[in-house]
């Protein structure tokens, strides 16, 4: 009994969704196909088998991220192509998103010289929201940032940006002083405050930035999976007790509410990531703490 895409454990009981977060290669090698076949018995040499670099790097999730980048680039090229005073529908939608980030995020948080950060923030917002919406799109069905590596990549980008901005404006020592010594703290207390501020600004900031994006989408996708996969299993479970099947139907119906929640989370997380990037840049650029 083979269940494609599901891992078989404990004899013939399919563990639905166990491998749902694993990346699958787009062009699997012969060894991958043999060792990841959905059968209980694989050849012995699979114990020492190593995946090839195409199995590791050219996967569906990396493809999703690249596709997201292409969609974002194409969207903004289409929006800014042939701009008119009376906007077309696409131009109107693009301007709406652009204005939201420009006025609501960049101008409010960064202050007077916000112009040079707007392209980065808009690109980051659109990239994150596209990748989050992949979690609700029926062909991909997986938010890219539910793999933690992608979230670390974006957090690293923000980390480099705000540190570079701060060092460029204040110099290395001035920037370190700005980030670790709050204004108005006297000598003995500073020994206690400075390490804490350093820890908070340089270590927990990037970690929580990446982890927040990852954890929300991971938990959201897990929730969707529990209701959909578990509901499917309960509906098809053959037992003398029909309560299982009724529970399954309720679970499947409730999964629509979870999907609606995920749409909200997809937008909210993209917005929060952008707004935190802007506020970190603003803190690095500020004249005093």
């Amino acid at each position: 009994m083979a269940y494609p895409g599901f891992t078989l454990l404990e004899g013939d009981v399919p563990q639905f969704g166990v491998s749902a977060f694993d990346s699958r290669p787009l062009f699997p090698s012969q060894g991958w196909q043999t060792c990841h076949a959905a059968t209980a018995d694989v050849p012995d040499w699979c114990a020492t088998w190593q995946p090839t670099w195409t199995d590791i790097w050219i996967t569906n999730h990396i493809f999703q991220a690249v596709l997201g980048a292409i969609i974002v680039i194409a969207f903004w090229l289409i929006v800014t192509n042939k701009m008119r005073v009376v906007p077309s529908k696409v131009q109107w939608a693009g301007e709406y998103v652009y204005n939201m980030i420009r006025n609501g995020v960049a101008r409010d948080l960064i202050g007077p010289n916000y112009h040079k950060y707007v392209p980065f923030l808009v690109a980051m917002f659109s990239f994150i929201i596209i990748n989050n919406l992949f979690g609700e799109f029926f062909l991909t069905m997986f938010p890219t940032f539910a793999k933690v590596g992608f979230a670390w990549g974006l957090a690293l980008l923000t980390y480099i940006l705000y540190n570079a901005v701060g060092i460029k404006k204040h110099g290395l020592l001035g920037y370190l002083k700005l980030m670790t010594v709050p204004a108005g703290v006297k000598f003995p207390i500073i020994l206690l405050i400075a390490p804490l501020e350093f820890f908070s600004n340089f270590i927990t900031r990037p970690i929580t930035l990446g982890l927040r994006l990852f954890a929300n989408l991971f938990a959201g996708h897990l929730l969707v999976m529990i209701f959909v996969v578990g509901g499917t299993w309960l509906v098809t479970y053959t037992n003398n007790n029909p309560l299982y099947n009724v529970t399954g139907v309720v679970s499947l119906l409730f999964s629509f509410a979870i999907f609606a929640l995920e749409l909200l989370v997809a937008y909210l997380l993209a917005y929060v990531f952008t707004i935190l990037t802007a506020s970190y840049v603003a803190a690095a650029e500020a004249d005093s703490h």
Partner: protein
Amino acid sequence: MTPLDVAASLKVVGYGLGAIGPGIGVGLIFSSVIQGTARQPESRGMLMGTAWIGFAVVEALALFGLALAFIF
């Protein structure tokens, strides 16, 4: 094995307990923002800026809990 068996784990319960504090904290932050905005609607932008930073700091604790629940 019946489908309704639940293999419980104490670390997940620990995460649930750990999420109580940040939950209250996030609620307090945004309730204050709502009140401040209601009293002085034009200060919304400034309030939200501070609120997001506070939200980030508070929510970090819940995120650490989630990460630790998976790691250990």
